[in-house]
């Protein structure tokens, strides 16, 4: 009998092979093949993604991956975007920066989402990482333009500074003037969320002039329309441009100036900004429309006729963000003009109005689903929906990966039959087999969760509000959705039973959020005691939960798996349920 001996490759060869493997999932798989592969892989991993900054400690990450060049961290739960997470909950990046400053001096890229970033953190970044190249802050807060100025001044190799929807303290520090005159490496700059910080236009123009590799430039609202032409002329290589205020007194010379400037940008594929749009100036962008793939008009308060004219000029549009001023009629034109559309987001112009202010209904969504075969991702705010429409949409778009529907009034039934929308959403999960993300709204019973548990096998993230009748609903989801990673629930009648019956499931997920539901303090304690690898956080601004009876439901509950144990940076209104070693079963 001959036994074949396995030839093992030298480490360098394996490392070279691994360098072609970029996806985190694959890298994780590689590291689990055997011990030597684990070792080789960990020394050559360059990018780490931490979906929950409290799931692991910075020290653990750096210990395992000492040579990373890029780190991405996410902090607060998603519902923090809607002010459901009280200020001060956590998500501080400073401890991570401190650890990395010492141990990973060659770090190049930091991407953060929903984290609290201080000026101190930014200054530490500027000081510690000599080859720092990219800072992407998405929905972050806690810092001012002073901290950003430190980055601009110190990071000679900075390529990307991207502030998306951040809450920045504007100290009128003239951020752009802190880039040295010798600095030319900027590729991507997004300052669209900066408030009324006065931008020195001459500084901006000089910066744009000398940074010949600039591809993305998103300005803030303070930049007036008459400055845009000059900037565009200095950066004809731009691929992604965000305007400031798109309003000015109409003058023929400034209009033609602007139109000419846009035409000189042959590479432009993405436009955004468009605050305070004056419709007469919109045709200035027509020269670039035929090549546009992405258009963000979600701040543009223009009416349907103008929107229709605009989208008719954009046959290659793949991504459109727009207000509901587009109306059903506009969406029908979109459906016939933009056959490559992959992503559509329609936001409400008057979210708190009692009566609809525009004629945007389920018909618009149906039209787009019918006309755009490549549609994959939808975020749609409307005021009425029907099961019939949802079934039609589902049949038209079996390729959906993300479907988020928000019917503005909670618990709104099918407007035609007055029935719950269970069957409609059921069709979505049944036909769209690759669905990864789903947000529900309208009148929904436990039935919809039964459908979801049965069919939504690839679903990774589910958002639920004002839905369901009983624990059975939650049970269906937790026991049926095999790929579920994130579940966020508010104002639903889900209590202890389903949660406790599916406790093991929670360790296979990133996190579970439940607020204004019916989970008792007792159940939280039990879960915390018996599940040491979960952090069970009770968030309650009414005061300590043990000052009320155990059967009392907690206000907010956030459960996440972690290998780092309880955290130590909790504010007074957050309690972590303690592990109790004597109660653990295994």
């Amino acid at each position: 009998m001959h036994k074949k001996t396995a030839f093992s490759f030298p480490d360098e060869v394996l490392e070279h092979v691994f360098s072609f493997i970029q996806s985190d999932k694959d890298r994780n798989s590689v590291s689990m093949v055997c011990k030597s592969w684990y070792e080789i892989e960990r020394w050559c991993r360059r990018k780490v993604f931490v979906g929950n900054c409290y799931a692991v400690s910075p020290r653990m990450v750096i210990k395992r991956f000492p040579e990373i060049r890029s780190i991405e961290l996410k902090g607060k739960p998603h519902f923090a975007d809607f002010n459901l997470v009280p200020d001060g909950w956590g998500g501080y990046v400073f401890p991570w920066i401190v650890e990395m400053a010492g141990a990973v001096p060659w770090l190049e890229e930091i991407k953060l989402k929903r984290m609290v970033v201080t000026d101190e953190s930014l200054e530490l970044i500027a000081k510690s990482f000599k080859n720092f190249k990219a800072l992407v802050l998405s929905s972050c807060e806690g810092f001012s333009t002073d901290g950003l100025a430190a980055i601009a001044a110190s990071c000679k190799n900075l390529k990307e500074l991207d502030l998306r929807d951040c809450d920045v303290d504007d100290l009128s520090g003239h951020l752009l003037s802190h880039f040295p005159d010798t600095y030319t490496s900027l590729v991507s700059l997004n300052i669209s969320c900066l408030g009324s910080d006065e931008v020195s236009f001459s500084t901006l123009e000089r910066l744009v002039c000398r940074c010949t590799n600039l591809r993305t430039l998103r300005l803030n609202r303070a930049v007036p329309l008459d400055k845009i032409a000059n900037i565009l002329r200095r950066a004809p290589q731009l691929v992604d441009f965000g305007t400031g205020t798109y309003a000015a007194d109409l003058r023929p010379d400034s209009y033609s100036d602007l139109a000419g400037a846009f035409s000189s940008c042959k590479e432009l594929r993405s436009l955004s900004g468009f605050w305070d749009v004056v419709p007469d100036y919109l045709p200035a962008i027509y020269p670039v429309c035929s090549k546009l793939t992405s258009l963000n008009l979600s701040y543009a308060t223009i009416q349907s006729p103008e929107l229709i004219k605009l989208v008719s000029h954009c046959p290659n549009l793949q991504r459109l963000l727009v207000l509901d001023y587009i109306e059903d009629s506009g969406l029908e034109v979109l459906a016939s003009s933009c056959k490559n559309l992959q992503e559509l987001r329609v936001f409400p112009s008057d979210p708190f109005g009692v009566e609809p202010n525009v004629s945007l209904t389920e018909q618009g969504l149906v039209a787009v689903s019918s006309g755009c075969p490549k549609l994959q991702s939808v975020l749609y705010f409307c005021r009425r929906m029907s099961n019939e429409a949802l079934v039609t949409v589902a049949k038209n778009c079996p390729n959906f990966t993300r479907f988020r529907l928000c019917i503005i009034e909670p618990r709104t039934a099918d407007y035609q039959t007055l029935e719950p929308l269970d069957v409609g959403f059921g069709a979505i999960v049944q036909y769209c087999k690759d669905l990864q993300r789903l947000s529900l709204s309208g009148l929904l019973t436990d039935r919809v969760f039964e459908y979801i548990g049965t069919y939504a096998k690839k679903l990774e993230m589910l958002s639920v509000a004002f839905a369901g009748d009983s624990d059975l609903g939650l049970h269906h989801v937790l026991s049926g959705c095999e790929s579920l990673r994130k579940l966020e629930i508010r104002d639903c009648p889900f209590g202890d039973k389903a949660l406790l019956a599916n406790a093991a499931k929670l360790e296979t997920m990133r996190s579970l959020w439940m607020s204004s539901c019916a989970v008792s303090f007792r159940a939280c304690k039990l879960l915390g005691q018996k599940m040491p690898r979960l952090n069970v956080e009770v968030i309650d601004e009414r005061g300590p939960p043990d000052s009320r009876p155990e059967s009392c439901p907690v206000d907010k509950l956030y459960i996440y798996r972690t290998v780092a144990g309880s955290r130590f940076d909790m504010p007074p209104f957050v309690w972590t349920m303690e592990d109790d070693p004597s109660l653990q079963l295994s």
Partner: protein
Amino acid sequence: MEGGLVLLGGGVGGGGSSRFPTNESAVAKVEVVSEVSSYPAETELELGLSLGGPTGKAKATPGRILTAKDFNSVVVPPRASINGGHPPSVAVFGTKRAADDGGSPTAISQVVGWPPIRAYRMNSLVNQAKAPRAEENKGTNEANNPKKAGSTLKQSNEKSGHIGYIKVNMDGIGIGRKLDLNAHSSYESLAQALEDMFLRSGGAEKEQLTMASKLLDGSSEFVLTYEDKEGDWMLVGDVPWVMFFTSVRRLRIMKTSEANGLGKISLFNIRSFRFSISDFCYSSVAAPRLHERNERQRSKPI
């Protein structure tokens, strides 16, 4: 499980059935909503420690869902979902809503964080929402609203909105908070909310508990101030609520000693001040600056 899972092409069409929902789930929901039963006490809650644990065993028992307190902030419209003979509790909310509505459509009373739109986007909307309508009826607007005309352009450059949250900081407490100003329609309710937020939430540095009104009348050691659109810090309570509401950018609960030595000001004085100032001028500069007030105070006989 019912045999109703297969729904591909199933009878969805709106025809046939009556307008009033007769299916069980809707009725069950109605029953469940009206029941405010106490939560079943159990000695040992079973913990499902293996995946794919007991299926179908969990019964749909009607437990306590949301307390009445929770429902107060949720508006259930009479027209949608359930009609016909719904139980009294639901009808109560319906009528509450109708009463709020009055004749003309006003804003829906808001549930926190609903509809799910980022604060960033909401603030942006508010600043622009006036714009298209303003352009449509420019003529009438200018006549009725001298403050607005000429300030629409300025508005477009402003950051803060009022459907949305404003920051609140209290001297001595490191962590700032955010407050939904839209949830309040009077100074009293604002002060009460602030007291709940800062003085009762187990904050680490609790000073002595003060009555909400003391924040307004300046008789506590803290004074409630706000930063207005022009960046000036003003005393809260001087101007009519609506004027305050449209100009406030953020709040600060300031130590009285820091508030420019204003000292203790009685509510009476504040009110009388407002009357005398508004006699002279009605403009966007509604109340005197803090330090200006100081000087005037000193010269005014008390």
